[in-house]
């Protein structure tokens, strides 16, 4: 089959590789019909993520048609499914609590060593995202082996367009969880840092959860326009001072809840030895710590901080004093995708949530390397690239 493989920094190629096959009895194989490039894929592209190996197949936002099933899969050939980016077993203690991204068993035993050393306990496996998260081949390919297919993939009703449901795989649940973690109460004002896909979905979700006002912060005009379409007020941080603006816009109180959706968007793992390197490039390090620091300072006393943005290592200058003195609450974590998928699919089917607005570019899988370059070079215009095998 053809698949987008990582070969090094700024070097991704569409290679011909072996087809995936059923290995374990709960597996299925899907034929990919649509897959997206995630903002976090750019950090693999830029060479920031450790434990990548040449030839690793990328992609964790994907969907397709079931073409093979293992003996214990509950899926049927021919079904259309969206696959969550988190690989979870459904039977461990954490899965029982719907903490799917904390699954004990989704990550192969040998790969759990690194997570155990870094974080104290290893997290679940992820598709196409380095060997720290399992070394699983990803979805920017013609076919994918999906483990635990009786738990992860959600079946899509016939006749629904791929583009309407593709983002159930990651960014929509991630934006929704971010808003849920902000514990929004009716009448609240919520501030969202970052108008990437996760931030934009958090804006939509916050309104659906009863927020009266959402204030979105970014510097890309095209992305700020999208936030405004969903009813958000916006602050362009290149034109205005964010803390001062938020304080004035909330009558000197500060937002009731703040959401930091800047940086790696929803996932990605950094070890401390690369953090310095990242910090040196203002592109990630400073901006990311800056956004969470600004969010904590702006947040009203007794307010809530939700952090879908990923921080993998150690952070300097975290305003611990402000956080404690103001009595804030912080909720964060990788997305428990499987938990949110059924309700969000319903919301899409009922027309309560629109996801297609995000897609700016559609391309053939063969053109994926061009897609990566475009996405990296022009974040204002390129909001989301969807790849479709055989699109041309």
């Amino acid at each position, binding site marked *: 089959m053809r698949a987008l493989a990582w070969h090094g920094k700024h070097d991704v190629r569409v290679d011909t590789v072996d087809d995936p096959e059923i290995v374990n009895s709960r597996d299925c194989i899907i034929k990919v019909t649509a897959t997206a490039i995630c903002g976090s894929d750019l950090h693999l592209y830029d060479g920031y993520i450790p434990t990548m190996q040449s030839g690793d197949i990328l992609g964790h936002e994907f969907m397709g048609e079931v073409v093979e099933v293992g003996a214990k899969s509950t899926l049927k050939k021919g079904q259309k499914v969206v696959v969550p980016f988190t690989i979870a077993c459904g039977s461990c*203690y954490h899965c029982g609590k719907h903490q799917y991204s904390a699954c004990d068993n989704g990550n192969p035993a040998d790969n759990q*060593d690194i997570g155990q050393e870094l974080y104290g306990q290893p997290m679940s496996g992820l598709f196409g995202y380095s060997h720290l998260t399992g070394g699983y081949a990803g979805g920017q390919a013609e076919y994918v082996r999906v483990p635990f297919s009786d738990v992860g993939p959600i079946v899509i009703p016939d006749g629904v367009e791929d583009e309407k449901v593709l983002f159930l795989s990651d960014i929509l649940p991630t934006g929704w969880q971010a808003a849920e973690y902000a514990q929004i109460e009716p009448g609240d004002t919520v501030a969202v840092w970052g108008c990437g896909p996760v931030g934009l979905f958090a804006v939509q979700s916050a309104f659906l959860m009863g927020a009266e006002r959402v204030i979105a912060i970014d510097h890309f005009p095209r992305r700020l326009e999208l936030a405004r379409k969903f009813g958000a007020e916006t602050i362009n941080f290149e034109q205005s001072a964010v803390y001062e603006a938020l304080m004035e816009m909330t009558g000197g109180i500060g937002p009731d809840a703040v959401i930091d959706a800047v940086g790696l968007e929803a996932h990605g793992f950094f070890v401390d030895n690369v953090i310095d390197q990242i910090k040196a490039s203002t592109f990630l390090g400073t901006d990311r710590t800056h956004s969470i620091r600004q969010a904590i300072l702006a947040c009203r006393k007794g307010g809530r901080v939700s952090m879908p943005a990923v921080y993998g290592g150690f952070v300097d200058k975290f305003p611990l004093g402000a956080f404690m003195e103001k009595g804030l609450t912080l909720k964060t974590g990788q997305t428990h995708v499987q938990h949110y998928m059924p309700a969000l699919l319903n919301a899409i089917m009922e027309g309560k949530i629109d996801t297609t607005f995000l897609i700016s570019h559609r391309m053939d899988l063969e053109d994926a390397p061009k897609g990566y370059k475009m996405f990296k070079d022009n974040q204002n215009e390129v909001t989301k690239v969807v790849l479709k095998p055989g699109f041309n």
Partner: protein
Amino acid sequence: MADQYPTDDAPISASKRSDAVETAHGQMTDAKGNSIVGRSVTINKPVGELFAFFRDFANLPSFMENVERIDVLDAKRSHWVVKGPARTTYEWDALVTDEVQDQYIVWSSQPGADVDNSGRVEFRDAGARGTVVTATILYDPPGGVVGKLIAKMFQREPAIQARRDLRRFKQLMETGEIATAAMNPKQHEEEFA
């Protein structure tokens, strides 16, 4: 032990004290080996199911990656063939020296073993969370410290193996299979070669 260290309930695998090995020896029957490996894992299954699976030693190679083969000789004795670094193998006969059903199994290698070792695996009911399985293994690394270092390089060091084997035991019991990123059966076989 509790009398000896009234302010420290930590298990011996976490001990910084110089008498840790001695303490471990006290918990075994016919203890052998002076390096300790201790590791616990919580498995979301009832004690009885886990004990029964583990006690049938012929099942162990299905999740113990470095165990090539276990021949069950009789109710108490078994012959172990274990992979070492660089395609070497180590063999020994193990004797179950003590056991209580659904509670613990204690074993010890018999004279003539390539690697002297002994161990104890405990199964403790953890209510809604299932069962806590604790393995404590004592062994004398072949080739002493240098051998241990070489084994570590080849990922065959008992501390690493015990940690990974217990995770695989948990995966097998909780999910019915062992997680792998292999794309097809051919890759899967190469991984376990």
